[in-house]
């Protein structure tokens, strides 16, 4: 470990969202959301389509700024530093807070180069890259499947393998937070199961934030569920608590499938 590693009391939140609002031209996409993310946890963000779940995770690593016309108000603290504060480099933010998207986004390169992509941007030495790629593929649960074909084109992998490769690519720069935006919505049940298993291992190591519209998935992998509805954080709590005894009628309606 080195001195740059932020020191915070054990159990203190890695990410802490304070009064976060996102404003489009005429609409509030997120309205005054506050939420903490403790180390080694998996929080599922659920809610109907258009409720702002994707916008929410995209504010957590400043990806939201890539959409023109949106304004962000409030704070997101990463180990005590506001990522929207003055002098903060969004590139470094995204190295610490990685992201995986709905559809697999492998680049047209070999499996190895895909996993090494982030490291190459930082000019790591070849030895370092070799080690880090193996480690990342291992953590993403893909190593045993691809270790003999690292030079194969990543595009020839199956959808589920591609998605785990994207997770490996995000993990290779060793982020402390990984945002997953409906990572299994384009995958078949078997591939979904693999990705879910990967998430379950990973949540012991880093902070995972999972956006999903699938209540079953939230029940299977998450420790905690946050329910969003039209930009408002309606309630948040232990997974079993929220899914079995929701306090708010909106949550109740959503998880019993009365609207999606």
């Amino acid at each position, binding site marked *: *470990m*080195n001195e*740059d*590693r*932020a020191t915070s009391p054990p159990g203190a939140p890695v990410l802490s969202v304070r009064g976060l609002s996102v404003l489009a031209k005429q609409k509030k996409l997120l309205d005054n959301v506050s939420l903490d993310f403790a180390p080694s946890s998996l929080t599922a963000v659920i809610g109907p389509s258009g409720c702002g779940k994707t916008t929410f995770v995209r504010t957590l690593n400043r990806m939201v700024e890539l959409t023109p016309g949106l304004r962000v108000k409030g704070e997101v603290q*990463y*180990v005590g*530093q506001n*990522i929207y504060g003055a*002098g*903060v*480099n969004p590139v*470094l*933010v995204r*190295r*610490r807070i990685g992201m995986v998207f709905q559809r697999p986004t492998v680049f047209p390169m070999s499996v190895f180069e895909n996993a090494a992509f982030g490291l190459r941007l*930082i000019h*790591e030495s070849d030895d*370092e890259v070799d*080690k*880090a790629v193996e*480690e990342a593929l*291992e*953590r993403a649960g893909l190593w045993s499947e691809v270790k003999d074909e690292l030079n194969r084109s990543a595009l020839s992998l199956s959808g589920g393998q591609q998605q785990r490769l994207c997770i490996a690519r995000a993990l290779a*720069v*060793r982020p*402390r937070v990984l945002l997953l935006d409906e990572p299994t919505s384009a995958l078949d049940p078997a591939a979904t199961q693999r990705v879910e298993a990967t998430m379950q291992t990973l949540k*012991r*190591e880093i902070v995972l934030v999972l956006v999903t519209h699938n209540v079953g998935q939230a029940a299977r992998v998450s420790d905690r569920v946050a329910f969003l509805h039209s930009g408002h954080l309606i309630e948040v709590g232990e997974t079993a608590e929220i899914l079995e005894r929701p306090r708010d009628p909106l949550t109740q309606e959503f998880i019993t499938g009365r609207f999606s």
Partner: protein
Amino acid sequence: MATPTVSKSILDSDNIRYDASARTRWRLGFDRVIGWLLPLLFVVAIAPILSLVYYISARAIPSLSWQVITSTSPYQTDAMGVPIIGTFELMLLATSIAVLLGLFGGIATAEFLSERTAGWVRMSANLLVGTPSVIVGYFGYFTFVIFFGWSLSLLAGTITLAFFMTPYVFRTADLAFTSVPSHIREAALGSGARPYQYILRVGTPIAFPQILTGIFLAMAIGVGETAPIVLTTAGGKIPPQTLFSPVSWMSSLIWQNFAQAPSTGLPTIAFQAAFLLLVVVVSLNVVVRIISSRYRRRLEGLYA
């Protein structure tokens, strides 16, 4: 693999500020240099255009009047009503032909022809775009004026200009139809649409803005062309009466004035013609911008 085995400061640093490391600082400095260099290069790039616009406007605007633009008196040398009418007619006819050919050609290569044949057609179109306009003019002269015996006429000019404009329409139409997202195309064909029904009901609405852009682009390029017209139809003193009458053309007005008196400099009328052409070309480009930005917003959801 619970604990990472590699330990490297830059990866594990939680410092997310710009001054996190010497390397970030160096990159930031580089970023700043580029940030200055780009506007500088921008100025270098647009300076010639601005000076050209100024050069022409300064000589054209002071004496430009409604009478100069509208007078169609046949022997007046300081009015351009006749070339304006000629240009309008020629453009209208040539654009119609170019749109018809280009559109059908683009649909054919995008939807119906085999990859091999389509490849040949695309290559020919690209070749035609790359052909110097003088060559197209000579081709028109020998084929239509001499061989078909149409003399210097509206018809010969129209077809030659259409030759010049068609590949521009074709290329955008081809691109527009091939870039309709394949899942949309398959959804249409999968719900039992015949190919032509897919093209009319689904493909065209999606490809339309891009095609329209291509048409206006072809017009902007065509209206400024001189050689194909000078060689196939020129010197009409009155607006054309039939398809076989000669036509007067805006940019050939400039050319003829230069050819008659290359050393004494261009008369004001040439600058006025140049100025009007400039206005037309700029307007066409602005229209293209407006259309494509308006439609792009409407179609955004398709590509999600």
